[in-house]
């Protein structure tokens, strides 16, 4: 479909803060880079409603929506990362409606259908007789869809209605402050109330009505456990319609030291010193616990998750008096020399869990820049680390490949290609007969932050899969190959 670009905007951190103040939606997905890293988005993302209202403001300003806005239907297709620049594209306009899209480069993030004409009368009052719901400093935490069943309440539009004109003046002039405020509060409804913390706003469709009121009522009308989906009806403040959201999985907690220690003998990995690149969370953190529980000395690296690495070290040291875990920062894309030179002891084993977010939003079959990024981490980074450590002594390394290389899921071609290149590198290192011996394992899909996606997919238990792998790697002496 051809389309004309009406406007573009870069949503920065100041925009995020301003919309959070206006809406009360302070969900960490939008505001906290460290927490957002552990979500499906992998980074902080723009409030979808913010982008929609910006688009609506531009459509009114341009005259495209001059006939008056009677309804709004939106499908959120992809995240807009903070710092990203979106273009508003007018795809189609006739007397009855406007179809517009927000695009991030070639990627459509949001689809809007704006109904034009007179507002309908609408029913007075709110959709349910639920309690008034205040928005606190933290989102509600619903872990399972059934916890949303029967939820209802009302959000007060009076506060945002007083402030919306400064941010969306054209939309307010066309629709009135209460209706724009009600749309603003859809963000808070999903991000702070239901499903709250672990939410993804999927879609909404509302009619704008002439029914008065300053409360936006909501009530859950359906849940779907299979897909972790919640549907809600909304009514009040001149708005009437439906909202659809998904519940993300909470960040995945790997097995604790207590659980790991039950399966590992206290001296099983004694006399080994293991560097775990990417050890602050996920499979890296689990591997650190297993080796430490077996009496091995562990050095876990982190790229951004210093706090998580500290928690890991604390858990290991706290559980077993002899448990040893040091943490160091490490960037797999930089030379290891300066980063690892200070290691006091010789490293006998290396586990390389350095990773980049693997499930990316992209357009097209193959994105060269994305492939380059993965090669930097999964091939060059591993090579450089092995070469540096191999120059200091014999090294047994583990390279985690993936079953995805045999059958890449949709959109993960570049990741699979880079992992295949990594496997070939490992084969080359082993054939070279130097001081580095590498074990490669194509791991199944395991439950980690990176695989805990909506829609849900089957994923194996990481400890069950990794324990035999770790035993094999740790027991491999250099000469055995």
């Amino acid at each position, binding site marked *: 479909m051809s389309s004309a670009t009406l406007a573009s905007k870069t949503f920065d951190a100041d925009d995020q803060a301003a919309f959070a103040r206006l809406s009360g939606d302070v969900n960490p997905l939008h505001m906290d880079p460290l927490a957002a890293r552990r979500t499906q988005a992998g980074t902080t993302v723009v409030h979808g409603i913010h982008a929609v209202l910006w688009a609506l403001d531009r459509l009114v300003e341009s005259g495209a929506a001059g006939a008056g806005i009677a309804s709004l239907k939106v499908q*959120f297709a992809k995240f807009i990362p903070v710092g990203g620049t979106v273009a508003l594209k007018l795809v189609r306009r006739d007397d009855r409606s406007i179809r517009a899209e927000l695009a991030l480069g070639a990627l459509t993030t949001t689809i809007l259908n704006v109904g034009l004409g007179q507002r309908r009368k609408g029913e007075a009052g709110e959709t349910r007789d639920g309690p008034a719901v205040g928005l606190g400093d933290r989102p509600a935490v619903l872990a399972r869809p059934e916890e949303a069943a029967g939820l209802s309440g009302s959000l007060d539009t009076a506060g945002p209605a007083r402030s919306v004109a400064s941010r969306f003046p054209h939309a307010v002039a066309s629709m009135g402050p209460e209706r724009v405020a009600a749309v603003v509060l859809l963000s808070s409804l999903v991000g702070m109330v239901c499903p709250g913390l672990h939410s993804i706003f999927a*879609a909404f469709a509302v009619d704008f009505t002439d029914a008065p009121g300053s409360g936006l009522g909501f009530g859950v009308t359906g849940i779907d456990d299979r*897909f972790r989906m919640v549907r809600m009806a909304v009514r009040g403040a001149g708005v009437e319609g439906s909202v659809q959201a998904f519940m993300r999985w909470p960040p995945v907690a790997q097995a604790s030291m207590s659980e790991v220690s039950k399966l590992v003998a206290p001296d099983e990995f004694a006399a080994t010193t293991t560097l775990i690149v990417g050890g602050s969370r996920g499979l890296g953190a689990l591997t650190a616990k297993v080796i430490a529980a077996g009496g091995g000395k562990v050095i876990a690296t982190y790229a951004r998750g210093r706090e998580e690495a500290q928690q890991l070290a604390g858990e290991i040291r706290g559980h077993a008096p002899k448990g040893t875990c040091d943490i160091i920062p490490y960037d797999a894309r930089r030379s290891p020399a300066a980063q690892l030179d200070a290691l006091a002891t010789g490293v006998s084993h290396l586990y390389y869990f350095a990773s980049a977010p693997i499930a990316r939003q992209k357009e097209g079959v193959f994105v060269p820049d994305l492939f380059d990024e993965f090669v930097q981490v999964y091939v060059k980074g591993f090579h450089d680390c092995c070469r540096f450590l191999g120059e200091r002594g014999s090294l047994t390394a583990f390279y985690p490949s993936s079953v995805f290389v045999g059958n890449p899921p949709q959109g993960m071609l570049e990741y699979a290609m880079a992992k295949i290149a990594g496997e070939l590198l490992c084969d080359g290192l082993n054939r070279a007969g130097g001081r580095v011996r590498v074990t490669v394992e194509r791991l199944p899909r395991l439950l980690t932050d990176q695989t805990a996606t*909506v829609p849900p997919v089957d994923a194996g238990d990481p400890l069950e899969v990794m324990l035999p792998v770790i035993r094999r790697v740790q027991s491999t002496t250099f000469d055995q190959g």
Partner: protein
Amino acid sequence: MSDQEILDVLTRALRDLLMDDSIVLGMETRREDVPNWDSLVYINFIVAVEMQLGIKFKVADVESFSNVGEIVAGIKAMLR
């Protein structure tokens, strides 16, 4: 229902979700052939079709469909 009748239901559902009346689904159509038919929209699409036809897929089935023809076959099997 015939294949074509089911195909019409699927086409209407996707057109409604993506707000695009130019979408035409065929038995060989794959998700990547339709702009913006990504994973969350796919779930919405499946749920919309289920509600219209009064059926309910298993998650594993939903994951396994590689093209529209397989969805049509899955629906026919459930309606039998």
